[in-house]
């Protein structure tokens, strides 16, 4: 178990290294000259250009620049400085990560909190009016990109009805719309998946057995069906992490939330490559970490997986115990 977890954590190192290389390469070979951008396209001399390039380390070769970047990142957690504001990217990101994390994690919670009960309800009353309504609504929600949902919500609840503040993050009321809009598509797909999983589970033999032995329907659903539903649904949650994070990036810009998304956008508008590279790397790192966490939770709650990673010593002990109890029962 520990071995598996360690292996997964260690595997993240080459993956993250690969991500840096890919993102660095993409931004490195892009057209547009950062030095020209800083100095302005018509007020520089060859000398001042060369000096600025040397100061930023942009006169070195591709491999050297990438080496320095990775070295600084690994040893000093330094992601370079913004070309335009000269503020270290890591400092700026450190302020913004909690905001985006809060938005994304709240959205994941909302997604599960809404998707799970409605999916189960819809599966238990298959082909009823409730089921039809839930399915239709989730189909509608799934076809709405988060930013479209966000704009429509901002228009309807923020401007027309004036129920919720359209921008900012100062009170909890400011968070309602961003969280729901980021979760929107996720809620839809999660509801459908819950429904499918639940339909699959309630057809299993052990559910029939539970019913046959006269258990209360409530207990059958809660104790037998739901528990077995949770395992595939946990893996699914992992798949949504990336979607929710990238959705939150665009939603942030609509509600003026000072998170990583608005920062990334600043970098894109100003062609400020350290910001772009740094933000994308950190977003990928966060997504991978949350995914890793989900995977570990998954192995913890699924006894079948847990059994695979049990150490041989422990296994032998358990087998002995099993034999003993079996023997005792036989006597």
């Amino acid at each position, binding site marked *: 178990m520990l071995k598996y977890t360690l292996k997964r954590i260690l595997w993240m190192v080459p993956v993250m290294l690969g991500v840096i290389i890919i*993102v660095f390469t993409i931004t490195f070979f*892009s057209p547009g000259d950062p030095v020209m951008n800083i100095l302005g396209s018509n007020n520089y001399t060859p000398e001042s250009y060369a000096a600025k390039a040397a100061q930023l380390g942009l006169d070195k070769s591709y491999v050297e620049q990438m080496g320095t970047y990775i070295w600084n990142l690994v040893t000093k957690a330094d992601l370079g400085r913004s070309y335009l504001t000269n503020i270290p990217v890591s400092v700026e990101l450190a302020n913004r990560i909690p905001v985006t994390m809060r938005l994304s994690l709240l959205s994941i919670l909302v997604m599960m909190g809404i998707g799970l009960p409605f999916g189960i309800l819809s599966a238990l009353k298959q082909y009823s009016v409730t089921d039809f309504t839930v399915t239709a609504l989730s189909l509608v929600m799934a076809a709405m990109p988060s930013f479209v949902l966000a704009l429509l919500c901002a228009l309807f609840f923020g401007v027309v009805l004036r129920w919720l503040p359209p921008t900012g993050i100062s009170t909890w009321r400011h968070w309602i719309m961003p969280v729901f809009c980021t979760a929107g598509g996720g809620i839809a797909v999660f509801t459908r998946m819950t429904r499918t999983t639940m339909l699959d589970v309630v057809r299993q033999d052990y559910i029939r057995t539970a019913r046959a032995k006269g258990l209360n329907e409530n207990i059958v659903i809660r104790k037998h069906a739901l528990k077995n539903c949770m395992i595939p649904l946990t893996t699914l949650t992992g798949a949504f992490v990336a979607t929710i994070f990238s959705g939150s990036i665009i939603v942030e810009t609509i509600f003026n939330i000072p998170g990583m998304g608005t920062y990334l956008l600043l970098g894109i*508008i100003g062609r400020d490559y350290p910001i772009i590279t740094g933000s994308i790397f950190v977003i990928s790192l966060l997504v991978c970490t949350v995914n890793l966490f989900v995977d570990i939770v998954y192995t913890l709650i699924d006894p079948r997986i847990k059994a695979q990673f049990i150490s041989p010593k422990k296994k032998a002990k358990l087998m002995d115990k099993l034999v003993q109890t079996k023997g005792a029962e036989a006597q």
Partner: protein
Amino acid sequence: MTAVETSTNRTMPADADSEPIKKKSMLGEIAKRFTRSKAGMLGLCVVIILVSMILLAPVITRYDYAFQDPANRFAYPSPQHIMGTDNFGRDIFTRLLYGGRISLMISLVSVVLSNFIGIALGSIAGYFGGWVDLTVMRLLDILMAIPSLILAIAISAALGSGTFNTILAISVSGIPYSMRMTRSTILSVKTNDFVEAARATGSKNFRIIVKHILPNSFAPVLVSATLLIGTNIMSISGLSFIGLGVQPPTPEWGSILAAGREFLRDFWPLIVFPSLCIFLTVFGFNLFGDGLRDAIDPRLKD
């Protein structure tokens, strides 16, 4: 066994006429099942109506999408301008119709491109297995660590805006998914007896993949491609919305929406109608894809 027969028939021209009948019946079966699904048919109708409106744009509307009428800015929907006019006095309905051309074109081309590369790489990985598979999958792990929309944003930011660059960005971000899909399908198809038979008759690897394995794994790939059209439209409009992707004055749903955002407080048509377009298109393609999946493989249906 039937699969072995059809695959050998293909090399024998004498029996060529028996094959189309068989194929037709399978397609007919799928079509029959598809027409029975109400949601799938609704999706197909939405798609057909939208696509024909977009293609017939010059017939439907008499305005030019770039024609500015400064005297008539921010007009609310009226018989002359059924969706009103924007901040430059341009007809919103016309701009949405022509914008749909760009969105649909980019989306379709990207689906084809990313599936072409994804299928090629995925079938190599799935068919050969071993270290080839391991290497490709490990590289894929790295690519999948970057969320696909973020990857598209990165590529698009680096390449700059424009139709061609957007196609490239969206295609690359779609490759990992079609590759995974193809690989897993091929892993299950390649264990079939007809693959063994083809190998026994001396077929080369390339021939086995292209002639025997791919035709038998087209169904799930086709379904995921249909669903990818909708996803791509969302990504394209997202890119244009944040200022990458397609730039004004070229009309694109996302960039129209971005322009509308500035007038959120005062002028609703510039938000509501582009949103509706994106929603309806994605909705149509999703329903169509779902229906197709259920029709091709009824076992997948709940």
